[in-house]
């Protein structure tokens, strides 16, 4: 296992303020020598890290692994398992198309096609300019407004393919 100090220094190269914020959070956890107990804090640490850095690049993963006394492979294994975590940068606007059952029966697949065509992106991709990411989401629980599209925190209900340009132009 590498030295914790080095990994923090590497992290600081990304952004000193963000590195400090994450490190402060990790320090506040009641961590011990017991790896198994520390592991219980892994998912919440990753949530925090992703909140700070918007994604989880390898330097972040290494730092979290070091501080919790876990192997990088274990941390990476958790990130790749859960759909909420991403190790790739995401766009400024995350266009989440709900593809839960209620949205599906109300034509979410047509919206997926139209967004892909309009933005020239496939689901799961981020545009080269870093502005938009197209994401499939499983149910936000707003089934009464199906089909639903969520752009960052903003929810659009009863979306039709005709509304796609309008939704994109709201992202200014």
């Amino acid at each position, binding site marked *: 296992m590498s030295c914790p100090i080095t990994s923090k220094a590497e992290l600081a190269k990304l952004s000193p303020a963000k590195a400090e914020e994450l490190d402060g959070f990790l320090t506040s956890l009641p961590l011990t020598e017991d790896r198994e107990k520390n592991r219980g804090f892994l998912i919440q640490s990753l949530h925090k890290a992703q909140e700070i850095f918007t994604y989880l690049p390898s330097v972040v993963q290494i730092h979290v692994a070091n501080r919790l006394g876990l192997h990088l492979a274990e941390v990476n294994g958790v990130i790749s*398992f859960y759909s909420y975590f991403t190790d790739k940068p995401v766009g400024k606007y995350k266009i989440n198309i709900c593809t839960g*059952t209620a949205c599906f029966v109300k034509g979410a697949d047509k919206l997926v096609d139209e967004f892909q065509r309009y933005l020239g992106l496939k689901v799961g991709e981020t545009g080269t300019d870093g502005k938009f990411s197209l994401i499939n989401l499983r149910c936000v629980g707003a089934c009464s407004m199906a089909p639903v599209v969520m752009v960052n925190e903003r929810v659009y209900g009863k979306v039709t393919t005709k509304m796609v340009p309008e939704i994109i132009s709201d992202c200014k």
Partner: protein
Amino acid sequence: MIDTPAKLNSHAEKLAKAKAKTGSTILVSLGTCGIAAGGRPIQEKLVAEAAARKAEIEIVEVGCMGLCHSEPTLEVINNSTGKSVIYGNVKLDQVPAIIETASKGIEAASCEVLKPSWFYPEDNETATAERIQARIVLKNTGKINPEIIDQYLAVKGYQALSKAVHEMTSQQVIDTIIESGLRGRGGGGFPTGKKWAFAAAQKNDQKFVLCNADEGDPGAFMDRAVLEGDPHSVLEAMAITGYAINSNTGIIYIRAEYPLAVKRLEIAIEQAKKLGLLGDNILGSKFCFDIQIKYGAGAFVCGEETALIHSVEGKRGEPTVKPPFPAIQGLWKKPTVVNNVETFANVCAIIRNGAAWFKKIGTAGSPGTKVFALAGKVKKVGLVEVPMGTTLRQIIFTVGGGIMNDRKFKAVQTGGPSGGCIKFDQIDTEIDYESLKRLGSMMGSGGMIVMDEDDCMVNVAKFFLEFTLDESCGKCTPCRIGNKRLFEMLTRICDGRGTMQTIQDLKDLSYTIKDTALCGLGQTSPNPVLSTIAQFENEYLGHIKDKRCEAGVCKSLLKFEINEKCVGCTLCARNCPASCITGSVKQRHSIDQNKCLKCGVCMEVCKFHAVERK
């Protein structure tokens, strides 16, 4: 600090006395759907208008009322008479009229008035024909402000916990729950009391109470509504469980996708601790109990209890073989009771009112109520809580108002990706755990998606398989590879490349997966396939033999043609994204089938019904 049962009672009495006897109270539904539909500005305007008129009106933020189809929703209660009016689809400009009429006990003329269909079996056990819903779980949801503990205390809050720790032994609590016949509402239907008894019988210095709030089933939002609308009922029930099994630690495992529920839970925990209703020596007894929140990170399989436990431990959420059951060896290898949010939400009412009361509601094998998230092609999408034994017809057609746009009902899907589809001729089935299983579906967590004649059942099966493929953890071969093969076969049928052998192969492989997969997710994943084959075999045959998708969903099997009604207006040609429609003005047009994308735009824009889908 409330440290004795007497103080709890006198506090509740004080709150009851302090309750306004004059003026009006306006409840504003502000759950996730209410906020998304624009409830927040309505609430702000209500507050501003009421203040401007110096009206004697209290505006209260509440959780989801269950009337999601008509959000923003509000309920105006006349405090002196107790009568109330519910307004739906409220618009900002209607707010002044609502405030104007609120205190007079009359309905604002410009608003849509809704009739509630529920009753509360604790106060009023009579159900008239139009009152199909019975509220136990959702009793306070949409009635009290979830962020103010006093509102919960005013409606007998924490009295069940007080009764348990002061008047009952642990064994009596367990016996009451066993006697009530309460079964796990997460889908499995395992008797809750038995689960508790197993954990209670373990001799261990540390045990855990885990609340499963990882509502991953797409199209289900019951647990979210309870946590957003009545978080204390879950906290109180977890503490009662802790008392019953001799545990001092509760953990709520909640989806990160539910930020509002998390926020309200955090507030509730803090308030309960401050009053001494959680923490050390609860209500002056020797019992101590603390609750923490752990976040999920988006994995459907984590609804399975062993996978959930691994996720709390910070590992990949992969299930393990049972036994050992979590009640014997669960979180950190300690005895652990895992219950769903809705199961917990039943506990306090049972402890307060007794097992006999609970058994009067519902059916003999499945007492109590069940909350369903009614969605899809139904007119009134929303949360519905009905006694077990209510028929699907009552839920879909009476409470749900029937099918949207007056289309024909085709099927209702229950149990999410583990469930199945139920046809019209079975719609009078009285639902409980067993009856749904007999129909090849299951209760599941309570998602209920209604489909009409425009839905292709083969495609629906394919949709659920795609979901399972995404969510399969990959640990066992039947689920990881078997479901992939099922998905490919369904894709072949939807593309018109299926044969009769494909149906046989689908069935064979489905049964193999059911028999051999490791966990509940894998074992139930072929259910959507088997149930659609059993109920809608003709649609499979249509795709295979006639190369036809009756619902007009499977693109490869569609063909658009222009008939003699065409007047040559060129509208279709101008709108066609593939530029594959040719023809001169005032001449009948034609579609180049080789270039056609089958998007259907020509059919949508044609004013003369000249485009036919075949």
